[in-house]
């Protein structure tokens, strides 16, 4: 066990994967000499050389397209997109190619690439260094989507991602890159996909969150506890595959659901969760499902504190569901 920040845990996860398997390599902008603009790849070029930690020209379609080619051959590339906001030049490669290679070739050309990207708000990044657009990727069949919220999960989910057989969009909540620290197992630590994490047990209301919203939801639960409301916090960890069983079981127990994410509400991932609950846990619900999310606007700079869900908003939504029934 070592005490690490989330971004250090990402770094150790990458290092571990590269030590385990010479086929693992990293490519992206500023990932080599500079160690990544968030230092997630710090020291890796020194250890593994410029052939395995590759500074690329400024082209996301080039990064993901070439990563796909490497993966088709059998390497295990980890592509870094500097900010999730800059992934769109590669969107075509991701949704048209990466997600579909296995299917369209009848399994002859599986294509396992991990695309890492820091994402989310709270760092005063304005429109283009803040967005949470996980739903685009979760919506695309063939992609898996993993989002850690703790250092241990960052390493564990990343190692699972690197050794998975499917393409993984690995979103790192950059707001808590350094804000959270935790014990991280040394060596080959893996956290399975599709298994949600029970952050806190509760009986009155289930709060579903992922990424940087997990600490926000956890803080809200502490506030609620003082008021006698027992909130259960579930960290989804992977949106695809989704741990449906855990989501449904929790609501069957509490009868109430609050879904929290930074992304805009309309067609956000919370909509899917709400639909699943409506389809499969309807008779357990005692109150309408609540969503606490970013607003249906672009992500603002000066007023990002207004846009982002905070503890108050989460707690307020939980109170409302509890009062409703």
């Amino acid at each position, binding site marked *: 066990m070592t005490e690490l920040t989330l971004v250090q845990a990402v770094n150790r996860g990458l290092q571990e994967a590269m030590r385990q398997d010479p086929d693992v390599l990293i490519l992206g902008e500023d990932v080599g000499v500079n160690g990544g603009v968030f230092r997630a790849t710090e020291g890796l070029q020194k250890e593994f050389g410029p052939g395995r930690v590759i500074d690329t020209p400024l082209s996301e379609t080039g990064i993901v397209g070439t990563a796909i080619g490497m993966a088709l*051959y059998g390497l295990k590339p980890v592509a870094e997109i500097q900010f999730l906001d800059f992934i769109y030049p590669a969107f075509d*490669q991701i949704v048209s190619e990466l997600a579909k290679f296995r299917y*369209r070739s009848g399994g002859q050309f599986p294509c396992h690439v991990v695309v890492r990207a820091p994402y989310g708000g709270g760092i005063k990044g304005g429109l283009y260094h803040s967005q949470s657009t996980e739903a685009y990727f979760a919506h695309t069949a063939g992609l898996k989507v993993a989002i850690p919220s703790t250092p241990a999960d960052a390493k564990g989910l990343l190692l699972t991602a690197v050794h998975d057989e499917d393409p993984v969009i690995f979103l790192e909540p950059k707001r808590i890159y350094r804000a959270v620290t935790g014990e991280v197992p040394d060596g080959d630590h893996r956290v399975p996909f599709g298994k949600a994490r029970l952050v806190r047990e509760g009986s009155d209301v289930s709060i579903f969150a992922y990424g940087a919203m997990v600490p926000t939801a956890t803080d809200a639960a502490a506030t609620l506890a003082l008021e006698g409301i027992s909130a259960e916090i579930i960290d989804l960890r992977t949106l695809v595959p989704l741990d449906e069983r855990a989501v449904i079981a929790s609501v069957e127990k509490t009868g109430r659901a609050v879904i929290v994410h930074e992304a805009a509400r309309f067609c956000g991932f919370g909509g899917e969760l709400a639909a699943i609950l409506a389809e499969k846990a309807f008779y357990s619900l005692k109150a309408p499902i609540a969503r606490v999310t970013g607003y249906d606007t672009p992500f603002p700079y000066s007023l990002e504190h207004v846009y982002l869900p905070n503890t108050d908003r989460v707690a307020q939504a939980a109170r409302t569901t509890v009062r409703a029934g």
Partner: protein
Amino acid sequence: MNPDSAVEPLSYTPEEAAAALGPEWTATLEKAYRWMALGRAFDARMQGLQRQGRIGFYGAATGQEAVNVAAGLASTSDDWVFPGLREQLVALVRGLPLEEYAHSIFGDALDPARGRQMPCHPTARPAHYVSMSSVIGTQISQAVGFAYALRHRRERGVVLAFFGDGATSSNDFHAGLNFAAVFDLPVVFCCANNQWAISVPAERQTAAASFAAKAPAYGLEGRQLDGTDFFAVYRELSMALRSARAGGGPVLLELRTYRLTPHSSSDDPRRYQPAGWAEEGARRDPVARLEAWMQAHDLLPADRRAKIAAAADTTVRAAVRAAEAAPPPAPETLTEDVYASRSSGPAEGTE
């Protein structure tokens, strides 16, 4: 093909032909001609089937056979092909059985891709022919990454990246050539310039002097070739492959051909092609040009030519018959291969 039609003659002496094709040049020519004839016959048959409604779609490569056959013959089994839209014949030359290709066109149960793609999108891993996409240009940067992996593993292969003239405007053309040059990778970029991107003529695709002229923008060498001249294509492709294999880095070849058929079965070129274009194209028919040369040099006696045509016809018919007899893919294949295991779908927890 009418041997009397006024095709532009290929002006090679036998010595020059031998220099272009190597010591086994007569055998290579014979093979090349057989493949070109087969490609031509297959295209004709498929277009007929499409008109009869027996297949849903077809995009022919008629006019581009010299390029495809030369690429198939000049490359080695270590090499890999990332196709554009019209390189199916490369896969056949490299070992994709015609029958299997027919299954993929019919999208039946025996199609290795389980009928998931439109016709003309075969995948042939054993032939080192990568699953093709409809999305223009995406294969270009993928080919470059693949070449990176080959070098990373210290393998000898070279990657042939095919794309059309239209694809030179795509994002991945730009990224692919740039990355290949920066990382100095073993890739031969083959721009199959058939002068049309559906209805857009090559001169409206770019204002550059040629497509080959785009290479220096990436610090690469670009060469423009007559893609209807089998000798020239074979010679230049062989050289480019040899050079890339020896660590000489990437190169861009522009192979100028004439698209002798509509863009696809959904297209009507009379709407946009100028009068006389088809006639000019016919004079540059690569199959007719090679045939005329071989005949002029007594390498294709009439009976041999007839035999080859008959054999092509029989092979094509047999492949179609087999494909039409095959059942459609099983319904459960619909949800296979989305993820490595079916249980890792979006809702793993409830499986």
